[in-house]
């Protein structure tokens, strides 16, 4: 089997299964559910296997797979090939995307069991994977952009999956629209890139090898615009507003799209353009700050949320903020590694939340979900491990990844970033354990349904991954050799930090975390503190960001629309035209007074004509003579 064929199959098998499911779904009513299950799992399963295979070879033999499908567009210099390339970065991406996708597929077969839109769901789901693969495997940014937009689109469809409730639809709309604002930046950046260096080819390699020719200010602009795209996709300030709302979708969707894969696309993109960002330090720093504020802001907001999925959503924003901080200071592989671990534990958290939701009659408010530990012990264990992971308790995976970020921040010399990151990470611990303690440690008890095995087993796999994934990139200090960083081989900025400093950092960090856990336990476990927390505080209302956006952007646009259509188009232009016509007719009426039917007046007009004609003639003749 040739290598390019492997890539093609990897990419197209989800598409094929999506198409098949889709066609079955729209053309034949009452298809047996297992057919869909089979198709969906085949699609994602094949690609997961292939992804593992390809990544392994990339890792082990450093080989770069490529595949050229066809020419998408070729106009003058603008030659866009539909080409796939699995270099280290891409391979790394598919390494976790494909398996996690597959696991979530399996999970979803349980979650969506007996749902009447079962087929539709998996059609979208597989389509999403296709676009995600396209995004990470594309060899040029235009095709990447197609994948980029495609995941946004499928995300839209999946968020609004239960469209009977119009609110879900609006959440989907919001997701897509905000994403598109980011895409606006991304696309603009691509266009500028092409104009600057497009004549040398549009593949990533060609572009990145030519960026030296671009003048710095333009380069900064491009870098900034690219990051605007990332902001949208990865839900960073100010374009984060869609993500919490996107929780309206079925939980597997949240797990897959809004935790593990799509939202990380921004990180991937920035890493992909690492050579560019290395040249634009101003923009990089900007990214770091945006990441920092996002991390802090989301963490603060998450502390006063009650919806279990919303908490996780804000947590995602916050974690993405960490990644961007790392990216901003140039620690690309560190960011990528955190993304890697994050995808496991965050997916796990979401799946756990989903399992809870399914088990407890679709209740999502943590105040109503109290005391459920006894009825779902396995879930509790997995959720607890995941929470520990996200809190970066050593030696769980996130410890390695988050610690690397903290060290990089510290070493980069931006202490303010480091402090923000620290605070955010402590807040993370706080809100996550708030969730755990409120839900599982309660005096009240309630019983729920049990979850199907198809839901539990994938979670178990992810639990294991969450625990051990960190081992793939153990830093030197623990005797590791940073396997992943080396494999990725991105132009990371090198930070020097002494081992003693690093150990101090780690220990202080860990101690603080444990302290926070205890504080949280005191505050929430077996207590009613949660009931006393207001839903109307500034934080609970996310600092009124949605309202501000609505007042600043949506409402003015709407008002503008009224002004444009009513006042300008209708009143100003159209009425002027109507009035002109009306005046013409009125003038006709006025003129018709001359046609009064009296013959003497008619003769008088003739006389007027004669006299004025002669006056003219006389003046002319006088002049001529």
């Amino acid at each position, binding site marked *: 089997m040739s290598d390019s064929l492997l890539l093609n199959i990897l990419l197209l098998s989800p598409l094929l299964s999506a198409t098949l499911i889709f066609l079955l779904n729209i053309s034949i009513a009452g298809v047996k559910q297992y057919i869909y299950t089979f198709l969906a799992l085949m699609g994602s399963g094949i690609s997961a296997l292939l992804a593992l295979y390809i990544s392994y070879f990339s890792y082990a033999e450093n080989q770069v797979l490529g595949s050229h499908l066809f020419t998408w567009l070729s106009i003058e210099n603008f030659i866009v090939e539909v080409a796939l390339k699995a270099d280290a970065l891409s391979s790394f991406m598919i390494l976790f995307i494909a398996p996690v996708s597959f696991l979530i597929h399996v999970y979803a077969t349980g979650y969506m069991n007996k749902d009447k839109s079962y087929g539709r769901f998996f059609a979208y789901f597989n389509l999403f994977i296709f676009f995600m693969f396209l995004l990470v495997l594309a060899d040029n940014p235009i095709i990447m952009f197609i994948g980029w937009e495609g995941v946004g689109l499928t995300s839209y469809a999946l968020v609004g999956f239960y469209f009977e409730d119009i609110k879900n639809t609006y959440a989907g709309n919001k997701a897509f629209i905000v994403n598109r604002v980011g895409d606006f930046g991304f696309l603009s950046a691509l266009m500028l890139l092409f104009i600057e260096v497009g004549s040398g080819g549009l593949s990533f390699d060609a572009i990145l090898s030519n960026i030296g020719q671009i003048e710095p200010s333009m380069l900064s602009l491009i870098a900034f615009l690219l990051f605007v795209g990332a902001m949208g996709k990865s839900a960073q300030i100010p374009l984060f507003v869609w993500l919490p709302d996107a929780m309206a979708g079925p939980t597997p969707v949240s797990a897959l799209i809004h935790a593990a894969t799509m939202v990380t696309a921004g990180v991937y993109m920035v890493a992909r353009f690492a050579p560019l960002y290395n040249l634009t330090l101003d923009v990089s720093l900007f990214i770091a700050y945006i990441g920092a504020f996002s991390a802090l802001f989301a963490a603060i907001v998450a502390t006063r949320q009650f919806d279990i999925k919303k908490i996780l959503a804000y947590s995602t924003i916050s974690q993405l903020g960490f990644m961007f901080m790392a990216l901003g200071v140039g620690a690309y592989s560190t960011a990528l590694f955190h993304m890697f671990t994050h995808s496991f534990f965050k997916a796990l958290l979401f799946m756990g939340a989903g399992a809870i939701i399914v088990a407890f009659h679709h209740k999502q408010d943590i105040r109503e979900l109290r005391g459920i530990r006894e009825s779902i012990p396995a879930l509790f264990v997995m959720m607890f491990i995941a929470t520990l992971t996200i809190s970066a308790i050593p030696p769980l995976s996130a410890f390695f990844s988050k610690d690397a970020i903290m060290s990089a921040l510290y070493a980069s010399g931006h202490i303010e970033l480091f402090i923000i990151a620290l605070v955010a990470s402590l807040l993370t611990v706080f809100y996550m354990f708030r969730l755990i303690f409120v839900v599982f440690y309660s005096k009240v008890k309630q019983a729920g349904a049990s979850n199907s095995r198809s839901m539990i087993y994938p979670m178990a796999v992810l639990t294991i991954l969450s625990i051990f994934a960190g081992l793939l990139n153990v830093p030197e200090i623990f005797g590791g050799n940073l396997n992943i960083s080396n494999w990725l081989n991105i132009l990371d900025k090198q930070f020097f930090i002494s081992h003693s400093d690093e150990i101090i950092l780690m220990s202080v960090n860990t101690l603080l975390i444990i302290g926070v856990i205890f504080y949280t336990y005191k505050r929430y476990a077996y207590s009613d503190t949660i009931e006393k927390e207001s839903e109307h505080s500034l934080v609970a209302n996310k600092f009124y960001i949605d309202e501000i956006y609505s007042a600043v952007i949506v409402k003015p646009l709407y008002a503008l629309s009224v002004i444009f259509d009513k006042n300008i188009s209708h009143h100003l232009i159209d009425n002027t035209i109507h009035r002109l016509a009306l005046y013409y007719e009125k003038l006709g009426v006025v003129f018709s007074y001359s046609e009064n039917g009296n013959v003497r007046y008619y003769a008088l007009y003739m006389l*007027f004509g*004669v*006299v004025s004609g002669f006056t003219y003639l006389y003046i002319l003749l006088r002049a001529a003579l």
Partner: protein
Amino acid sequence: MQNEIIFAILALLTIVSSIVMISAHRPIDSALAFIVALICIAALFGLVNATFLFVVQIIIYAGAILSLILFIVMFLNIKDENLPDEKNKNWWLLGTSLIVAPFGAILIDLIVRSDIAVNMVPAEGFGGIKDVGLTLFSKWVLPFELVSILLLVALVGAVTLAKRDN
């Protein structure tokens, strides 16, 4: 010189009677003033040796047409109270005169400016019936014939319009 004086008197008379014609309230007065004007014009014809035209003018205009008008006036038996009540007649007359004045003035100015008189001396018998007749039947036979058709048309038309239903 004598001719000029006669011309002046006749011209004045013509103008005065024309003005009377257009301003008289009753049509019968107008008609009588018009007769005077027509006769003056006939005399002016005579003054330039147009003897045949002089006769024709008297016969056709003063005789035929005017009697036709008078006949109509009588026939229709328009009483004074049936006459239009022309309250603003004088204003109209004045206004129209003012409007038409530039037209007349311009034409008169143009006529004065143009030196059109050639002052040929007429031959013997000029303007007599024979002279006119010869010209009419040599040079102007076509218009003449056409006029006959025109009269026929007028006749047919008048009959068509004025005849009673059977």
